[in-house]
């Protein structure tokens, strides 16, 4: 039986679409991703809206990441949400959890003593990182949900574009650097 020419054309188109789609997916998972970010937690590094970031996926699962890198990760308490934070502690580091929980600006004297924020330290276990937003007073991060397993990290942010001026924003390209300074 000879198949009609049109049938052949349709199957070949569908097959190439499938292969192209899967290739795009492979690149999206393992090489590079360009996505929108929202939220105040990374101000002033990233704006709270209209910001698009370039993320490299070769750093996923925390491969070769160091302190000070910006990462994209899944939220431990809700894997469908993505978070964008800066790594501020590596495995083995000893971290002062949250001194602001005993600040006398936002807490009563009694509360600050109960919270004991200046004396609560933890040691980061193997395979985990400590991550915080750059905007410490408006960020939900390791200070509330604890250490982040490296298995949840999906990539490292290397650059960003601000799209609030429309497509012209593609020219407004800036690198996002590791701002950590070892004093």
């Amino acid at each position, binding site marked *: 039986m000879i198949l009609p020419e049109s049938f052949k054309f349709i199957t070949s188109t569908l097959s190439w679409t499938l292969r192209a789609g899967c290739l795009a997916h492979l690149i999206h998972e393992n090489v590079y991703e360009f996505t929108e970010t929202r939220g105040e937690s990374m101000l002033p590094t990233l704006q709270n809206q209209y910001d698009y970031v370039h993320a490299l996926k070769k750093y996923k*699962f925390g491969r070769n990441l160091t302190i000070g890198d910006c990462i994209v990760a899944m939220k431990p308490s809700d894997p469908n949400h993505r978070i964008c934070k800066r790594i501020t502690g590596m495995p083995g580091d000893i971290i002062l959890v949250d001194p602001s929980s005993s600040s006398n600006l936002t807490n009563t004297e009694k509360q600050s003593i109960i919270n004991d924020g200046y004396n609560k330290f933890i040691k980061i276990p193997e395979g*985990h990182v400590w991550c915080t937003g750059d905007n410490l007073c408006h960020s939900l991060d390791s200070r509330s949900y604890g250490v982040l397993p490296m298995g*949840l990290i999906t990539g490292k942010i290397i650059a960003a574009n601000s799209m609030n001026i429309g497509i012209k924003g593609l020219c407004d390209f800036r690198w996002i650097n590791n701002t950590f300074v070892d004093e």
Partner: protein
Amino acid sequence: MHQGIKTTLITLTWFPVLYTFTNHIIQPYCINGFSMTPTFNNNDIVLVKKYNMKSSNLTKGDIIMFRSPENPEKLLTKRIKGLQNEIIIPKKDYPKNQVKIPRNHLWVEGDNEFHSIDSNKFGPISQGLVVGKVLSVIWPLNRIGVDLEYR
């Protein structure tokens, strides 16, 4: 010669399709270690289902594969012993007497409790670390489709 290169290239274009299939639908894995005996033996090959892995589809008693919280490059296979918001009494030298499992976390333990590194050591694991659910044993042949219930 020219024909050979063309065939190779065409075959290569199917690689992303295979990758997507094994990553999101089903993939065979080899079990290493003895933490799940007698359900799985060392070097068994199992089929792992990757789709529909939301927390609402996981129940107690399911065997799941997940990334180790201590070493993200390592995959572990354990049985779910507790779902989110449940209260668990850990077995051995866990620092607390009882644990309330946080939202979207799971408590996992190996069937062979003496040779297992599980939630009794590293605590509840996040749902995001789950890779898939073990469907059945496919190798060795005499144990195909063996019952995976806890005995």
